[in-house]
């Protein structure tokens, strides 16, 4: 029996809008089921309160525009703070594993935040990962396994050049679903190449395909990389009854996946089959986390047909390709991929579907032999029209990069074309410096 700390926060008084999938009702039936199953007072499961995330905890990870006050609501602060609270249960030894079963979700939130996209504003697990590093040191190795049906593009964006984080996302193929990314070719920035691992699965993939990908790709990579902590971004929209995706996963499949992954901390992401899937998935997930018998957990409707053979073959081929890329990631010629110049430049247009915002972003990463490199990002949108410049340091910058970044920041501050010039040094963000 494993002791599980549960931070359950259904936000019964908050919705994006009354009829939105992210509404008061979303975790109601999950609450009913967990309560009726007696899991809130099971000896191995203990419930804890969430808390509000502090400004510095958010700003260590994000750049929020035009400002925290104008963009972040209390619900987002509680979801992020509740996720931090869940991780503290594990760090403080109050639980062996923790589950942040809360909303709103976070994995589509990028580092730069102009508003909500994919129902997400703050990236709960990214904020939590940076909290872990602030407590345990910048050398910490954290693996995030995102099992939501949608590509965890926000989390990927935040950590794509971060050698301390391995981000693995299993999702419905981006050609068939929001946000339209998450291809095998997206493998990370120059400072963490290969540590972004995408496993796009064909629509209709069921338990067999998901568990095959776990067995053949996720677990071997984790064994290879040896993380200190494993986080599961547990979206529950792979379920066959989910109204906005096309996957074939079941509650039993989820529980088995959890048992295989043995995550230290689980964070709820999406999942909008609020009556037919969530109550059963969450009960199965909790039981599996606690090492209890989940064999009798089953959703009311009959399952889909077994996964078609063609999908099984497709999944096998995808797995082969990814594991081969992983094995050869250190041999990659970074000069060929990112160029031989001093900086790697990336320009993007990002659409915020929830808030209907278009962002234009230009990013320059310093290609450095000694550290992941400092960055400067220029961003503007139809919400924040004047360009914001952000100078960012990695968690462990080399002295040269720190000096160059400081100089860049000083120059930008004197340039009047920028609305804001922001400095982000995650390792130096401390509550005492905030005021």
């Amino acid at each position, binding site marked *: 029996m494993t002791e599980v700390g549960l931070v*359950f*926060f*259904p*936000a*019964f*008084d*908050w919705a994006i809008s*009354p*009829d939105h999938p992210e*509404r*008061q*009702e979303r975790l*109601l*039936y999950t*609450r*009913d*089921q967990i*309560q*009726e*199953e*007696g*899991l809130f*007072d099971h000896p191995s499961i203990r*419930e*804890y*309160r*969430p*808390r*509000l995330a502090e400004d510095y905890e958010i700003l260590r990870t994000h750049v929020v525009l035009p400002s925290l006050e104008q963009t972040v609501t*209390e*619900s987002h602060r*509680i979801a992020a703070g509740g996720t931090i609270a869940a991780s503290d249960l594990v760090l403080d030894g109050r639980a062996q594993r923790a589950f942040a079963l809360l909303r709103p979700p976070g994995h589509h939130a990028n580092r730069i935040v102009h508003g909500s996209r994919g129902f997400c504003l703050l990236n709960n697990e990214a904020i939590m990962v940076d909290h872990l590093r602030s407590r345990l040191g910048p050398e910490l190795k954290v693996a995030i396994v995102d099992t939501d049906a949608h590509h965890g593009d926000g989390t990927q964006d935040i950590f794509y050049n971060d050698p301390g984080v391995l981000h693995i996302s299993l999702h419905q193929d981006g050609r068939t679903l929001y946000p339209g990314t998450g291809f095998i070719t997206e493998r990370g920035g120059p400072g963490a190449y290969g540590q972004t691992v995408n496993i796009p699965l064909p629509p209709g993939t069921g338990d067999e395909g998901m568990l095959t990908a776990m067995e053949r790709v996720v677990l071997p990579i984790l064994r290879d990389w040896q993380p200190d902590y494993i986080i599961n971004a547990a979206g529950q929209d792979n379920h066959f009854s989910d*109204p906005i995706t096309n996957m074939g996963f079941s509650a039993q499949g989820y529980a088995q996946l959890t048992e295989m992954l043995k995550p230290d901390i689980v964070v709820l992401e999406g999942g909008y089959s609020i*009556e037919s899937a969530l*109550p*059963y998935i969450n*009960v199965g997930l909790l*039981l599996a986390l606690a090492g*209890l*018998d*989940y*064999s*009798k*957990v*089953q*959703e*009311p409707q009959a399952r889909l047909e077994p996964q078609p053979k063609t999908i099984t073959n497709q999944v096998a081929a995808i797995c082969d390709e990814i594991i081969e890329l992983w094995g050869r990631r250190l041999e990659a010629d970074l000069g060929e991929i990112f160029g031989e110049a001093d900086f790697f430049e990336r320009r993007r247009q990002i659409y915020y579907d929830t808030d209907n915002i278009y962002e234009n972003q230009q990013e320059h990463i310093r290609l450095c032999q000694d550290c992941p490199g400092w960055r400067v990002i220029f961003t503007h949108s139809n919400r924040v029209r004047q360009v914001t410049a952000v100078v960012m340091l990695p968690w462990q910058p080399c002295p040269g990069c720190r000096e160059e970044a400081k100089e860049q920041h000083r120059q930008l501050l004197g340039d009047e074309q920028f609305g804001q010039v922001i400095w982000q040094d995650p390792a130096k963000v401390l509550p005492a410096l905030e005021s």
Partner: protein
Amino acid sequence: MLAAFMVGIDVGGTNTDAVLLRGAEVEALIKVPTDPSDLLGSTTLALHKVLEHYKEAKPVKLHLSTTLSTNAIVEGRGSPTQVVTVPGPGVNLKSLDFPFTLVELDGYIDHRGREISPLQLEQVSRLRNVLGESGEALAIVGKFSQRNPAHEQSLKEEIAKWHKGIITLGHRLSGRANFPRRIVTAYLNSSIARQQLEFLRVWQKVQGSAIGEILILKADGGTMTLEDSAERPIESILSGPAASIMGVKALAQCAEANFLIVDIGGTTTDLAAVVDGEVLFERDGATISGYKTLVPAVLARSTGLGGDSRIRYEAGTGIVIGPERAGTPVCLGGEHLTPTDAAAALGLASVGSQEAARQAWRDWGESLGLSGEKLASEVFQAFVNQLRRLVEDFYTELESMPLYTIREVLDPPRLRPAAVVGLGAPAPVFIPALANNMGLPWEVLPFASGANAIGAAAARATVGVTLQADTQLGKVTIPEMGYQGDLHRPLFFDLGKARSLAEEKTREYAESLGYDASGEVYIVEEESFQMVRGFRTVGQTHMVRTQLRPEVCRVRGEDG
């Protein structure tokens, strides 16, 4: 016209307290030792003794708080009881290690009370062979039966054709969601039902002759009729702590919205909290002898620290008091020093021989290199400090209750006390010191050592229901009443209508049980959600939990 006489009796583990009230006046308050092997004898003795000097008094009512059910459960003396369950999918019941066997039947009701799969008739007809006809007590419990009792009801109908014993249905005991607790509660209820029936027969003879009406105290501090107690004996467990708290409600002058109740006895101290003028209840229900139940109960935390606790001196730690009992204090002729002896030696309490206590402290102090007075005062301070830590732990526990709304997280319920109210024989000595330590005003109840009996006498009937309405399905359910009905105009059934219906049904239920239904019906808890399917509102779900709240009868304290 003279005010009516009434009697309150609290049968405790050590003593049985009895009070005779005339209106709000205490006419007599007596104490007899409890004979655990003859609770009935102890009770009748107390009754006769309290009525001794008032031959003319023919009390209209007797309120009885007894440990009968509690003891039967704690000592494992319940009748053999079989449990039939309809678990549906979910947690494997076999993994929950119930200390009794269960029969599991097919059938499945979901969280909205919809039947997903029906009972299997051939399984039901086989039950007769599975259970045998000898079984004297039975419990039938289905998952989500509080949302739809149909499976439990039809099983009872079938089983009652051949089973002549007691049958408890899970949904009648509580409207709360918690299947394992519902199973345990129904099981315990059936297992103690025969004993309660015997109890009922004994007291029914007394009822109407010596006494007008006999009512039984419940764990929630309310009363129920003898007949009712035979149906739901489980509700009479743990009525002792509830009696004390009712005593506070009847006697305390404290006008604070939030205060702490400390009931100090010889062996244990019980803590309870009043918040916004109401006593806090257990979130799910009482826990008894390791059994987690759905029985509504005042939230009281008991700890092994009392006037007669054992005192140890440990190198490093210092003085440790309790949790076990030392026995009679030295000042009263006992052999071991106790906190009561510390109070006696320091002149804080006039109990027994002050000199005997002082001598004993001197003797022990000598071996530790301390003066007797110094040692006694350190023990006294250690008692207060230990109690203070327990109070802190108690409020820390209360403040860890989960919160599910942004409103509550931003402004969490304020639970901390603004005053301390004490009762129990050692209370006058220790409560002022505790309150002083906490920086709060204090009050010790008059009749501090009989407040439990007064509380029993002052208690009134409580009845509550849980209404669950689902306007998409057009259904409304009140499990406690076994009621399930159709909503006539579901679209117009809003939370306001749910509240009025819940109030109306609460009164109807109270009347059907023979209680005064004229008191205020208040809403303990409510919830209301829009149900949206495919970006369209298809209905609403409302939950309203009520409680009929009659005023506790106020009792006058001594005027000095």
